[in-house]
């Protein structure tokens, strides 16, 4: 008997005035936790409920000189969980608060049963909030000046107040009311008022636009893809009674199989009467593309033909053919390896990072861009996709060989005094054999047709050097090469 009285004396009954007032709960919890009142000694309730321990000990004052630190994450989650309809939520929050005093990392232990329960409740509140945003259906009431929008919704939890600002942000320019059995929210265009619960009798009647909405719902549904379970997982039946479109669902499901089968069984029909006219008017002109098997008659024609080039499989993954660029009377032709990511997107050679280096070097060497033609040994970008990026792959000998068709035509039409091979792939293309570029750098080889070919590195080589000083030195050598090229031009 004495023992029982002792227990009763330390029991605290906390009755919160409202269901969702976090500040009120926090105040009570702070008083209790700083006095180290164990969770088992507290009975929590909210609103007008009757309970057995209503006459427990009064709440103690916050203990002086006790600090109670909790992670911000706890506050955020607790503010959501307090909206849950489960009456045990206050006790759960207190239990976790109490444990956080000595287990500061408790919330990271997602496998702890209390923490799991917390996450579960929070998720349930979040889902309820989300579903309210989705399934509230406004009905237009009144006319002219008095036009407003009203909705009836039945949430699982006490979320009206927490969710109302969303509707303010979205429907700022409208006057609206959302009625629910757990409270109402009203917006007049300037002020938000959260009010007491409403009943379904207050709900507005349907409006004319609902009929258009049902027309849309019926026709956007594809009967050949019936997946009722998937629909119900996201739109559970409990919401259906307040959705104007939901009444159509049973009939749509019933008729789906037949509708789908009819589509499949119906024989293909004759083309529509206007079809022949459309074909004649719009498509008769451009059927056959240029034949790329014969050499082109001009540089422009070659460029046009190359657009549809399938001489090697690289066109499959690339965006477009990147043909050379520059005047047809250019004195020098620079040949690079292949377009990179930027060039592939832009459709122009040497516009990416290596192109920028190249431009800078030409400028420094005093080579006049107006008398140069810039192209690549291979005209399509070869790469390996890696997530959101594309990793450059080196073209193989077959691909280089296939693309010589175009390089040789470019050289044939331009007839430059000098071709500059930027890197090994370009040298291979221009001289039709493998060339050790680092060894023969700076040398000039003369082809059988008399064209002189200057050998140097590809500017991307400079970009790949990690050490800054080394990269600078390499760049200086490249500038020197370009100065040599310029001298050869003058000669």
């Amino acid at each position, binding site marked *: 008997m004495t023992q029982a009285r002792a227990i009763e004396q330390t029991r605290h009954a906390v009755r919160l005035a409202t269901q969702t007032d976090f500040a009120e709960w926090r105040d009570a919890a702070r008083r209790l936790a700083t006095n180290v009142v164990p969770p088992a000694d507290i009975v929590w309730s909210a609103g007008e409920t009757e309970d057995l321990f209503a006459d427990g000990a009064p709440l103690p004052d916050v203990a002086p000189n006790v600090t109670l630190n909790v992670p911000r994450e706890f506050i955020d989650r607790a503010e959501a969980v307090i909206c849950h309809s489960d009456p045990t939520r206050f006790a759960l929050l207190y239990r976790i608060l109490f444990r956080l005093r000595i287990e500061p990392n408790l919330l990271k232990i997602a*496998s702890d049963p209390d923490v799991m329960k917390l996450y579960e409740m929070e998720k349930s509140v979040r889902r309820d909030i989300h579903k309210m945003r989705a399934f509230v*259906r406004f009905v237009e009431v009144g006319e002219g000046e008095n036009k407003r929008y009203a909705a009836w919704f039945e949430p699982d939890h006490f979320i009206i107040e927490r969710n109302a600002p969303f509707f303010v942000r979205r*429907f700022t320019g409208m006057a609206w009311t959302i009625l629910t059995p757990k409270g109402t929210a009203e917006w007049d265009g300037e002020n938000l008022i959260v009010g007491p619960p409403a009943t379904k009798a207050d709900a507005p009647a349907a409006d004319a636009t609902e009929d258009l909405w049902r*027309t849309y719902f019926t026709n956007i549904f594809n009967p050949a893809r019936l997946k009722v379970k998937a629909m119900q997982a996201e739109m559970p039946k409990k919401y259906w009674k307040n959705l104007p479109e939901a009444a159509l669902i049973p009939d749509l499901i019933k008729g789906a199989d037949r509708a789908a089968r009819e589509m499949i069984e119906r024989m293909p029909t004759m083309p529509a009467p206007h079809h022949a006219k459309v*074909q004649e008017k719009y498509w008769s002109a451009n059927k056959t593309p240029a034949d790329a098997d014969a050499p082109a008659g001009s540089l422009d024609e070659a460029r046009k033909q190359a657009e549809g080039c399938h001489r090697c499989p690289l066109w499959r993954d690339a965006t477009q053919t990147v043909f050379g660029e520059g005047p047809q009377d250019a004195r020098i032709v620079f040949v690079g390896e292949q377009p990179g990511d930027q060039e592939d997107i832009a459709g122009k050679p040497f516009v990416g990072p290596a192109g920028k280096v190249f431009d800078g070097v030409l400028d420094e060497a005093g080579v006049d861009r107006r008398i140069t033609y810039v192209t690549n040994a291979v005209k399509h970008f070869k790469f390996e996709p890696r997530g959101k990026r*594309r990793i450059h792959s080196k073209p193989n000998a077959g691909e280089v060989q296939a693309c010589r068709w175009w390089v040789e035509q470019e050289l044939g039409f331009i007839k430059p005094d000098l071709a500059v091979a930027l890197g090994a792939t370009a040298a291979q293309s221009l001289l039709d054999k493998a060339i050790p570029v680092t060894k023969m750098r700076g040398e000039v080889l003369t082809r059988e047709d008399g064209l002189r070919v200057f050998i140097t590195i590809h500017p991307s080589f400079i970009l790949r050097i990690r050490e800054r000083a080394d990269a600078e030195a390499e760049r200086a050598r490249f500038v020197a090469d370009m100065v040599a090229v310029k001298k050869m031009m003058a000669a």
Partner: protein
Amino acid sequence: MSVLSTRDKLAILSDAAKYDASCASSGAAKRNSLKSGGIGSTEGMGICHSYAPDGRCISLLKILLTNFCIYDCSYCINRSSSNVKRARFSIDEVVRLTLEFYKRNYIEGLFLSSGIIRSPDETMGEIVEIARRLRVDEKFGGYIHLKTIPECSPELLEQAGLYADRLSINVELPTDEGVKRLAPEKRPETIRVSMAKLRSKIEEKSEPTLKTKKRQRFAPGGQSTQMIIGADATNDADILGTSARLYGSYQLRRVYYSAFSPIPDASSALPLLKPPLMREHRLYQADWLMRFYGFDRHEIVAGRQDGMLDLEIDPKLSWALANRGAFPVDVNRAPREMLLRVPGFGTKAVKKMLDVRRYRRLRLEDVGRLCQSIAKVRPFIVADGWSPGGATDAEHLRARLVGKPIQLSLF
């Protein structure tokens, strides 16, 4: 021809739009109407306002401006040779429908596409005008997705990006050969170049300008595309190859796979079958493995002789069964990349396990609380107090995990 009411047109032009899979409204920049006093907001996460019995979410008013079309793509209900009933909305009708639906919270935006009439620029011009009227005249802050017509002029594309949250161009089919065969008037080369142009525009505008240091608005929700699955003979390996190429090349937010669905008044060039929905589902799973689980596309289909994904089990389980040497994985020690490869672990479960691991060791029951189904996971992991023993290599593992065979229904 009798005059069609808005309701008749809505029936025709939503029916015509339903074969486009995307209804996403996520990923847009945050925006609300507090300042403008209009209506509409986008807050990152998309909201599905309803679901049709096909299990697809309805978040946008997805319609065509018109289903008249000069193209004759055999898989499309709107092709010029189709006998489908035709209709055309006025600009005003689309604007009004969007606003009226939005105000009732039926939708959170507009997804506007169109058949091509007369010329690409003329059609695109009307699409852009609808977006402009909504944004500027009506102060509409909701989501706008515009289907972009590949051949339209750069000026129209620029404006489209200014008003829309997302732009998309459909690649239509996984291979260029497929496009040439089934959509003879479409030019796959032009489609690629248009996607490239969109990427450059999006990149260019995401850089702050020199003068104002502000970013200009251009399709903040990025670009996406769609391809039809099962209308031609392309296998899953090649489809995933195409997706990998598209993600890498054009920075797409999403590639949508749309199981070829029989359409009323179908062309004889196509298989008249039920849409391969399971195949579509497996492709989405494989797509996720590539984007969020660190899988290379080659691994996913390696060992599948016909280059097709296993329809019976998901691609991750399929990979695990073919690579049992990599298991069991110790949940207390394995790196994130390896945890992501365990069948039954999602990215969220993995994150939680990594968090818990910093403070205490994981037992099997802990893992059970963090993932969906411990039965599926058990044979592939080691946890405190748990080792699968020979279960990882058991011959019947696949049969056990697949469960009872479903009896095929007579059709």
